[in-house]
């Protein structure tokens, strides 16, 4: 089985195209029906398909607020997904431990601060810990398991997850901790501005999170495109064997990649921790990054970002406008269904490489 570039097929309606056309037609019919009053208020079709949109039109400030909240949680999902993508691209490992790495990085930072280390020094020390983690993961787990099937490596990252949970709880205790947002000069409070007859409140920390995420992604893009190590990373992602044969050290690349994922985890941990608190519950929320991954494709950095935003916004809109119809709490699974719906049309994700399988 190998991946090769496929020539773009000429545009014509596939079964997928017909499905999309049918959906669009149904939407137009529904809209017409509701406008002409064939489907009145209270009709089940109206409640599900028309009324939420009417609500959106009637209260645009609520809509903007919901979209903004979706956008912010989308950025955070995208950051976790980014950590996954970095490691998957370079080593083909589906790193389940990314979620716990976020928690672990956050806990280490707070732990150092509580020991009396100044905030920014603690930040640097935490980076050191993440580097140590990357080295030990490469030495202890990846190196002995090289050339094993994917599922074995996936399981090994489960082992890492358990070790990190155990270690983190043993060292820092299992209680939630307050992120040291003030000491790291992160802004507090919110900006409110009037919008379409209402108010929209934007938390400053959320704006900062979005900005920092954008900065980090730009930095990563620069690192990948312009530096020597970045080129080596892309070579490894393309083909391990070819990269080895031109003298790129796989072990070194793996350490770098896991360290990069550790940095991403630390930034995610700070941002997420500043919004709520640092606790092991974050690890469950990190599972939300998985639908983002399948939506964007396991190997695509832009995919992780676009996927994160789609999932974040879709999830918040769905919960706010459609959730009450079925009793709420649909946030826990809606993301997966959004991702599944996309997957039915593109099995390799939105930006994933098209796989052509051969015998």
């Amino acid at each position, binding site marked *: 089985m190998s991946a090769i570039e496929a020539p773009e097929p000429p545009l014509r309606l596939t079964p997928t195209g017909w499905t999309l056309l049918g959906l669009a037609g149904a939407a137009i019919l529904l809209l017409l029906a509701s406008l002409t009053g064939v489907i009145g208020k209270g009709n089940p079709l109206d409640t599900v398909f028309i009324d939420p949109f009417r609500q959106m039109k009637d209260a645009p400030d609520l809509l903007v607020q919901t979209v903004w909240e979706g956008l912010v949680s989308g950025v955070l999902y995208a950051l976790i997904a980014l950590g996954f993508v970095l490691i998957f691209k370079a080593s083909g490992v589906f790193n389940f431990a990314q979620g716990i790495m976020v928690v672990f990085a956050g806990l280490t930072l707070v732990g150092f601060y509580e020991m009396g280390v100044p905030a920014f020094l603690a930040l640097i020390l935490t980076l050191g810990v993440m580097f140590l983690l990357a080295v030990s993961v490469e030495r202890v787990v990846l190196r002995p398991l090289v050339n094993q*099937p994917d599922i074995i490596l996936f399981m090994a990252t*489960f082992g890492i997850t*358990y070790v990190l949970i*155990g270690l983190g*709880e*043993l060292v820092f205790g299992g209680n939630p901790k307050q992120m040291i947002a003030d000491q790291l000069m992160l802004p507090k409070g919110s900006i409110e501005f009037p919008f379409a007859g209402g108010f929209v409140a934007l938390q400053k920390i959320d704006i900062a999170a979005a900005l920092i995420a954008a900065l980090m992604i730009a930095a990563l893009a620069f690192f990948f495109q312009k530096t020597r190590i970045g080129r080596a990373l892309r070579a490894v992602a393309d083909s391990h064997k070819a990269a080895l044969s031109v003298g790129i050290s796989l072990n070194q690349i793996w350490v770098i990649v896991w360290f990069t994922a550790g940095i991403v985890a630390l930034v995610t941990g700070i941002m997420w921790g500043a919004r709520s608190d640092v606790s092991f519950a974050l690890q469950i929320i990190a599972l939300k990054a998985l639908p983002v991954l399948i939506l964007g494709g396991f190997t695509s950095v832009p995919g992780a970002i676009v996927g994160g935003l789609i999932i974040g916004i879709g999830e918040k809109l769905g919960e706010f406008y459609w959730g009450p119809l079925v009793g709420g709490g649909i946030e826990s699974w809606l993301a997966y269904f959004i991702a599944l719906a996309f*997957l039915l049309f593109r099995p390799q994700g939105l930006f994933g490489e098209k796989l052509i399988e051969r015998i």
Partner: protein
Amino acid sequence: MFYREAGQFKTSYAADMAVFPIRQDRIGIAIILALAYLGIPALQNEFLLTSVMIPMLVFSLAAIGLNLLTGYTGLLSLGTGAFMGVGAYACYKLTTLFPGVNIIVWIVASGFVSAFVGVLFGLPSLRIKGFYLAVATLAAQFFLQWCFVRIPWLYNYNASGAIEVPQRTLFGLPVTGANATPETRYLVLLTLVVVLTWFASNIVHGRVGRAWMAVRDMDIAAELMGIRLLPTKLLAFAVSSFYCGVAGAAMMFLWYGGGEANDAFNINQSFTILFMVIIGGLGSLIGSFFGAAFISMLPTILKFGLPAIGIPLSGATAEHLTFLTVGVLIIFFLIVEPHGLARLWQIAKQKLRLWPFPY
């Protein structure tokens, strides 16, 4: 010396295809069955029955179910916990709606309900593969878990929001509910496990099992050889979910005796069963038993074993250490023997054939 097949001649195809072709194996299995049926209940040890044997048997059943899907058909699933939950709730609904019917019938019937749900969530497996599919099965996990909590009809509008297992009898003896003795529950469960394992063994040694393994090894090649992927993959999902459903029903009715879905059938349960399958050995029925025994007994051993050898632990530290140990053990086992305990068993048997004069 004693484990040698010299002098045992096969004179028919049936004998050649037997599951246990060596006489010593047949004697061994008879001894194990006799011990399980007569020896263990005769010890009259309630702790052994309720904390060791019953959990192990329930998890073995679930692990066999997942192994049929992941180990034999190569479809990675992270929704095992939810499929177990479907079995438990189906059994609860059926036995409260029709209390006159024997509970064993309902436990098995609930497996069919679970199989139906499994087929529904298995449909995407035709389009998507590998880790994409694994994440897609998470949709089943979270959606079904949401249903268990949000649809009160499923738990008969109980104030506790949990399954309350009623008393049911078999031959006049209570097998479920508070009055059932551990011995009866154990024997009923053991019989279920033995019969279902026998079925599973026949499935995987027959035409269906070979088709599954062909799909696992390379599905395109299998398709070219005339194996229809749609029925084969869906059958794998159905049979696997059947086993998981029966395991879930057995877990609720014969082990827990009532409980809430979020505790018993959450995502961690799915991961635990995946550990069992991988530690035990992918694509091996006996491995499912080894894995289930190992993982289900590990916390008990750590909890009671460490104080016994003189390492006193407080409750919280013990829990953290359990996490740490489980993580380290998973990584250790994957490195030492990626093919699981079943492979170690095979190696041991091979060595035994030459013992005491190896060449």
